Structure formats: structure tokens, C-alpha cells
């Protein structure tokens, strides 16, 4: 997902800032912390940090795994659906299901309010291409939830109480 420049040898990449998922994973919650007493807190940053944590550990992860094994067609040797495709749909901004809500919320935030480069264009592309690739499980919902990334905050708040009360 990150656009990367290859080093001469080819085994080490340098992620560019457009690979925000990479960047977030590397920098969030890392680095030297100074005491809150001498820190000034800025609202945008606090929210981003909280959102990204929700993506990293949540019931979403379980639902994605369930989807991954459910999609396997064990009777057909040439079935090509699985995790790679799941990742593809997860990162493609698909309007597909509630399992994508939180991730999209953060992506929206990250890409949406930037005025600098071509992220907006890229996102439009991703969104439109995802419409064609709806999976069997949720194709009936695809049209009604076309704008699901906009409503990500509501799907997020729905997912939370469920996860805490009913993990059996």
C-alpha cells in the first residue's frame, strides 16, 4: 500500500509520507514522552491517536478473520479468494461492510483534510473501483452503504458495545 522507493540493493524500502498506514504503524506511541505538565495538547492530534488505536485492536480484527476463513472455498483448488483479497478490499475504501468502518474513518481523516498532494484523487479512484468488486456476502448491501466511509463514526460506536459484552 505504501509507495516506496527502492534502495540500490532492493531489500530495504523507504516509505514516503503517502504510505500513511506504514508511517502510523511506525511512529504512533513511539518516541520520547515529556511530562504532560509541560506539554500543550492539540485536539486534532489527540483524536487521530485514539482513532488509530481503535483500528489496531478491536472486534474488527475478529470479523475480518472470520470473513477470511468463511470466504475460503475448500472444495475448489483454484479458489483465489482469501486474505490478500480481503486486504485489497479493506484498503480500497470499499463501501462494503461495517467491518471496514473504523479503518475508513481514519483513512478519511488522514487523506481527507490534506490539501497538498493527489490523495484526494487517489481516494476517489479507490472508492469507485471498489464498487465493482463486492463480495457475495454483502453485495445486497453495497448500494445502500455506498457512503459508508462517511458514516464510519456511527459504525464504530456500534461495534464497541458489542465487542465488550458478547465475546462469549
Amino acid at each position, binding site marked *: 500500500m505504501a509507495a516506496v522507493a527502492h534502495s540500490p540493493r532492493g531489500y530495504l524500502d523507504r516509505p514516503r509520507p503517502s504510505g500513511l498506514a506504514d508511517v502510523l504503524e511506525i511512529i504512533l506511541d513511539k518516541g520520547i514522552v515529556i511530562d504532560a505538565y509541560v506539554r500543550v495538547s492539540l485536539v486534532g492530534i489527540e483524536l487521530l491517536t485514539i482513532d488509530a488505536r481503535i483500528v489496531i485492536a478491536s472486534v474488527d480484527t475478529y470479523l475480518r478473520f472470520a470473513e477470511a476463513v468463511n470466504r475460503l472455498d475448500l472444495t475448489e483448488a483454484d479458489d483465489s479468494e482469501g486474505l490478500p483479497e480481503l486486504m485489497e478490499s479493506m484498503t480500497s475504501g470499499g463501501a462494503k461492510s461495517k467491518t471496514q468502518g473504523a479503518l475508513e474513518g481514519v483513512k478519511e481523516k488522514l487523506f481527507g483534510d490534506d490539501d497538498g498532494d493527489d490523495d484526494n484523487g487517489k481516494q476517489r479512484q479507490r472508492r469507485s473501483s471498489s464498487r465493482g468488486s463486492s463480495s457475495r456476502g454483502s453485495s445486497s448491501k453495497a448500494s445502500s452503504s455506498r457512503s459508508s466511509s462517511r458514516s464510519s463514526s456511527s459504525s464504530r460506536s456500534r461495534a464497541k458495545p458489542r465487542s465488550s459484552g*458478547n465475546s462469549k
Partner: protein
Amino acid sequence: MSEGTVYVYGVVDAADAGAAPVRVVVEGGLAALVADVQAGSVQAAKAVREHWRVLDAAVENATVLPLRFGTVMADDEAVREELLRANAEHLAGLLEELRGRVQVTVKGTYVDDGLMRGIVAGSPAVKALRERLKGLPEDAGYFERVRLGELVAAEVDRHREADTAQALTALEPHAVASRTETASAPDAAFNIAFLVARADLGAFEEAVGALAGTLSGRIAVRGVGPLAPYSFADAELAAGAV
């Protein structure tokens, strides 16, 4: 909240301040990499990019102590007194420890559904629950699906543990230290930060290549770096009495 607050990216040796990609606040032997920000005007996406860009540029020429993303102080005076002077010894010590060393993050990603197939085949509980879910409408099976996902996640964790251990064995000999990070993507096999001496970067990269060859077809391996030592600068500084 005052108007002119200061974002702090990191700390370098004052001797390296000349090559800094942004404005610096110098105090004693230390220099803080800073930028002026208007309180309340921060856009998260831009802030992330800036944080990354600045530290990325700084690590080219210097040993950098990255500060946690989102560190903002009242003004230059606060940076000078509360950060640099109050913690001078601590910061200098950390810089000395990390001198000439950079971070390389190595990530492994499962490349096809072989892992999932193995899990279904190897776990009767997963297999049974998967069968039961077949044909259930999406909403009706919600809790079962969460449960299934939980079972699969536990199996995935077992595989990740083994694969992480293999990566560590292959790469640790070429690194000074390592930190196993959370693998947040569902298809992530491992995510490990290594602290590597600049002089050993070539050897480390070759080892990454060798590991990629060994795991080829099962796990795709990717090294990201050299980076500022984000995962190895984890000190918490107290608000010092000046």
C-alpha cells in the same frame, strides 16, 4: 492557550544542529528540532506527514532522538528550559546510546490463503463453526462470526509467534537490539523493529534478503529504513525542577 506554540520533532546533538531540516532551539550540547504551530490549527494528516518528513530528513545526517508524535510546548523558552535543560543528562545519555545507529523495521506478510487453509484444516473448532455459519445471513450470525474470528485469531497468533522467532534468529546477529511490534494487519506475519549500526546496514540488508528468500512463497518480507530510532527512544521524561 497562547498563540505561538512550538511543535517538537526530536533532539539532536548541538554539533548536528547546522544540518537540521527545521528550526532548532539550542541549549548546552543539545538542539531541539522545532516548528511554530498555531494552537488549535493542527490538521492531523499534515502533522503526521511533517513529523515523518522532518525526522526522516534529520536521520540522514545525524543521530536523532524522536519525540512522541504530537509533542507541543508553549514556546522556545519552554523547550529550552523544560525539555533540554531539565533533562540534559538523560537526553545526552540516550543520544550517546543511539549514536551511529538507526532503526530498520522488518515486516512479514502472509502471501496467500495458505495460512487460513491450514488453520481450518488444523482446528476442528474452527472447521465446525465455519460449517455452521454457512448459509446464515450476515446479521444473524454476527456473534458466531466474532467467535469464529476469535478462534482464528488465536491460531494466527501461534503461527505469528513461530514466524517472528524465525525472523529474529535470522536478523538479530546483525542488529544491536530488536523490538517486536504489534502486527496490526490481519495478514501480518511479523513486525519487528531493529536497531542497526549504520556501518552494518549492508550486512543487515543482505540478511533481510536471505530471509526473504527462505520465506519466499509463504511470507513476503519487507525492510523499511534506515529510520530514526522510534522504537528505541522510549524514555519518559519528568517535568524537571530547573
